[in-house]
């Protein structure tokens, strides 16, 4: 599997949230500001990559019966490390994500990749898989944040742009149009459910259209090849 194929898979065709449809809890809960989205996405990317590398490295010596327990222990270890580092160096992110940082332990994406991929693949491929799946996840988070913030509050870049006293994580970003014209409901849990539903629907539509196009193209090629054969036989 080439790098380009893996990248395409991670971002589009095998996107963890939109196609595999796992890891949705955090996606809906924390996408209320761009700071949260990027912070969570990067945290998951780092944890996913580290766990992929470690699990792939020890895959030959893990006994099959307790492999899930060992995955969970390794993942919990990395999550705690990232949690402690965030509390010490980016406390604003730790506070706004709250209980969802330790909950990365049970994020289906990480356990799912460990079970489906890293158990069988070498370290190099697992490393790239971690980065690309993490990228796909981060992209979905960013899209949802941009949508919910813009249409919900009329803002952009909450927590990253226009911060209070330069402290990252504060402030409401650039106000593009007055907040009172926004659909406040999008910043509430309802908005999370609906945005994600709409995004997955768009992705399913796009994938189906591209699959239909590909099928139509192959059919046309086959017919052209058959026609050419018939023509050759007639001559």
């Amino acid at each position, binding site marked *: 599997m080439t790098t380009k194929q893996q990248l395409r898979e991670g971002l589009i065709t095998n996107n963890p949230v939109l196609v595999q449809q796992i890891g949705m809890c955090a996606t809906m809960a924390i996408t209320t500001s761009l700071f949260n989205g990027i912070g969570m996405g990067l945290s998951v990317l780092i944890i996913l990559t580290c766990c992929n590398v470690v699990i792939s490295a020890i895959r030959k010596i893990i006994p099959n019966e307790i492999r899930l327990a060992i995955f969970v222990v390794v993942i919990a270890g990395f999550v*705690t490390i990232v949690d402690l580092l965030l509390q010490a160096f980016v406390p604003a992110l730790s506070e706004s994500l709250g209980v969802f940082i330790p909950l990365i332990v049970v994020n289906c994406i990480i356990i799912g990749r460990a079970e489906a991929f890293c158990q069988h693949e070498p370290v190099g491929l697992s490393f790239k898989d971690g980065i690309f799946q993490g990228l796909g996840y981060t992209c979905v988070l960013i899209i949802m944040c941009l949508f919910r913030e813009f249409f919900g509050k009329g803002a952009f870049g909450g927590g990253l742009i226009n911060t209070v006293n330069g402290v990252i994580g504060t402030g409401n970003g650039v106000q593009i149009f007055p907040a009172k014209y926004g659909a406040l409901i999008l910043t509430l849990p*309802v908005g999370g459910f609906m945005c994600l539903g709409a995004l*997955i629907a768009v992705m399913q539509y796009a994938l189906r259209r591209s699959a239909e196009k590909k099928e139509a193209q192959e059919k046309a090629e086959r017919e052209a090849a058959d026609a050419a054969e018939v023509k050759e036989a007639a001559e």
Partner: protein
Amino acid sequence: MLTNILSISLGAILINNFIFSQFLGCCPFLGCSNKMDTAVGMGIAVVFVMGLASAICWVVNEYILMKLGLGFMQTLTYILVIAVLVQFVEMFLKKSVPSLYSALGIYLPLITTNCAVLGVVLLNTQNNYNFLESTVYGITGGMGFMLAICLFASVREKLEFADYPKCFEGFPICLVSAGLLSLAFMGFSGMKIF
């Protein structure tokens, strides 16, 4: 004391429902709710596991982790306790209620990765609840989960006959319906009778 317990219970079931307000436990909520029987079974199992996990993890935290200053080991310890607990629940169900065991199938070991179980234990620690409050929060949180999943199962059974755009097939239409249910539950916010 009693009013505190009652207000925690009401909060967990209606006002801050684990699924509709706090988004904890969405994966089994969406995955297990195609039929009412599976939903009810899953709900009961989750209530049981959440209550027990809250109680046991509180004890472990109070008498082992805190005494030894090992606060940072909380996540690791809690998830191990939950994994062992689910294993025991699985063995117990297999022996005593085999029909429920076969109905739940693969979803029973998946309770380990249920955000709601680990979430409720972490929230207990964050809110500094005592033993009784933690256990009540665990049990009533599970009841809130069960209420949500059963409501949703009945909605999904009707969805099969609905006429929606093809690209919404599968999860998207479920998520939109869940969003509408979440909107309904918003009506409980700020409620305070205890």
